[in-house]
């Protein structure tokens, strides 16, 4: 065998030239990865660096004035802007409560589907559908459902209330409305993750617990939970990162209102960049968001690795 491969190698070498150099085995990995990294560099990383540069200049995309160098001024401005912190806070509240609801609902749904029973596949499809809708349609129709005069939810609740049910009139109600819609749309995602965790629990553990006469709670806390623990963490991180991007649903259901009670950081950046054309300032803000996302991504990968260690 050694003889054969040696011949092959010399054969390739003798062909010589750039092509052979390029196709050498030690270059195989880099060569295969290059196209992907190239596209990512052109469409993602390069623009990122560009905007990093922009964030130091005073530049507006709708003006013809020559940009001036401002140093860290925009970072300073963003970090000291009360509005920004308020938006981050709003985002945190919405992300936190939405992810919490998604976890609970997704978990219960997963428990429901963790068994095998007739028609499971079809019923599972029904629950998965919300995830496939576009944000726009979810936003539009939930807004309609909440509408006090024409809304389905309002109509149903009016049977139990003396006053008209007006959900979006208060900051708390508006946040609840957004969280409800977002959690409805994405709980199936958490369900899928938890389901993955539940499926990976060996059945004999449950049987052993049955023989050992473990209570429901003990069974859950010593078998089920340890197996899905890191997956739940995964779900939290994934959803947190995704919910950070929450834009369309908010923009459609409340436009950030009442007042600025539901204006998330994503909506804020959008306004800065595309309505006010404060290009540099929005770039600086975007970098702060990116930093947060990178931290979260690190946590996410840590969680993934932990799970791999635990299962194998």
């Amino acid at each position, binding site marked *: 065998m050694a003889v054969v491969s040696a011949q092959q190698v010399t054969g390739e070498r003798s062909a010589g030239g750039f092509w052979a150099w390029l196709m050498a085995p030690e270059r195989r990995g880099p060569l295969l990865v290059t196209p992907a990294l190239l596209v990512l560099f052109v469409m993602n990383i390069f623009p990122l660096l560009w905007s990093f540069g922009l964030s130091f200049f005073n530049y507006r995309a709708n003006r013809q004035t020559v940009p001036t160098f401002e140093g860290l001024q925009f970072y300073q401005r963003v970090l000291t802007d009360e509005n920004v912190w308020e938006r981050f806070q709003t985002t945190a509240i919405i992300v936190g409560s939405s992810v919490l609801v998604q976890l609970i609902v997704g978990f219960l749904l997963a428990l429901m589907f963790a068994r095998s029973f007739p028609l499971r596949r079809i019923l599972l499809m029904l629950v998965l559908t919300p995830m496939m809708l576009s944000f726009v349609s979810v936003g539009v129709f939930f807004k309609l459902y909440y509408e006090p005069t024409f809304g389905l939810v309002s109509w149903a609740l009016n049977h139990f209330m003396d006053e008209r049910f007006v959900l979006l009139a208060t900051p708390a109600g508006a946040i609840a409305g957004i969280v409800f819609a977002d959690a409805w749309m994405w709980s199936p995602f958490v369900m899928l993750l938890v389901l993955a965790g539940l499926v990976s629990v060996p059945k*004999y*553990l449950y*049987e052993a*617990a049955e*023989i*050992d*006469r*473990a209570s429901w709670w003990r069974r859950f806390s010593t078998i089920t939970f340890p197996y899905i623990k890191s997956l739940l963490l995964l779900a939290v991180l994934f959803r947190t990162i995704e919910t950070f991007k929450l834009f369309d649903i908010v923009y459609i259901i409340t436009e950030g209102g009442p007042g600025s009670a539901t204006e998330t950081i994503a909506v804020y950046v959008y306004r800065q960049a595309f309505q006010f054309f404060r290009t540099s300032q929005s770039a600086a803000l975007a970098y702060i968001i990116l930093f947060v996302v990178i931290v979260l991504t690190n946590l996410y990968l840590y969680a993934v690795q932990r799970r791999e260690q*635990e299962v194998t």
Partner: protein
Amino acid sequence: MTIELLQLTKQFGKLTAVDRIDLKIGEGEVLCLLGPSGCGKTTTLRMIAGLEFASDGEIRLGDVRVNELAARERNVAMTFQFYALYPSLTVAENLAYPLHAEALSAGEIARRVDQIARILQLGPVLKRRPGQLAEGEKQRVAVGRSIIRDAVCFLFDEPLSRLDVQLRETMRGEIKAVLEGLNKPTVIVTHDQLEALTMADRIAVMRDGRIEQVASPHEIFARPANLFVAGFIGTPQMNLLPVKLVDRTTDGVRFALGEATVILPVNGATSALRPSAALTIGVRPRAFDLAAQPAPDTIAARVDIIEPMGAETLLHLLAGEHELRVVVDRRTRPAIGSTVHLRCKPNQLHLFGTDEQRLDLRTVPAGVPA
């Protein structure tokens, strides 16, 4: 306390996994369910445990019918094939796990864990988690967890299958010792006959959901009830030769084996058989002597393959179209292709009828005419 199975049946859809079996395991008795995979032995065990529910028939623990009780209500202990240790708990916690259902004090729990750990020599690993244990330790924890509480019976599902050969021997002895001290009915499921033969008081051989024979290990080996048991028990496998009865002689009965004939020293039940009846003769590989000369009571066979097994040598022979396995002393070294003459040892013949059931026969004592 006893375990009693009456006409126990389990169906999975159209497949009948366990078919009307009757079995009684007495107090302190260790019963092995032995059989090839898919014979229904594990299903039977799981029905006793309450992890599967019987389709028909009855399971009694003591005097109580338990068919309708869930596993947790039956108070049985079980050791699983894959040990089923709770991965997030330490060894001590794993051992204590079944005790939580019994509302014991913390001190009592600790005492029992200590006791079990001592018996099974688990003391040094009590603080570890299952992922950090060797296979043998895991196995001991699994056993410990099942014996730590006062269950009405003990069930073992392939307890040794994941251990290497050496460990298996040690563990066999340890488990046997532990079980002897418990005096509870115990059922062990295994596909390993050595395990069954060494550990069991009685063995139930199963095939296709039915029990083929229940008997002591010695009985099973010495007097297999039918062709299946005969072929299943014993290594190397018993030679099973289809023969036709030709006639009786003073030395025994003359059988036709292919084109050849051989006189074998049997009597008894054969008197009921008519000439030319199709029978099966079973001879264990170690029940042959090599004869120097062909004789009416020898079978001629050509040496095909020679397998040295250490102290003994296994010969694969061809007698006409029939394969024969014969174990001989390692000093006997016939050449490949040469012909040897085999004589059956007296008292070690098994004869099975057309219905594959054992024909109970007496061997003709040497030199005594029938």
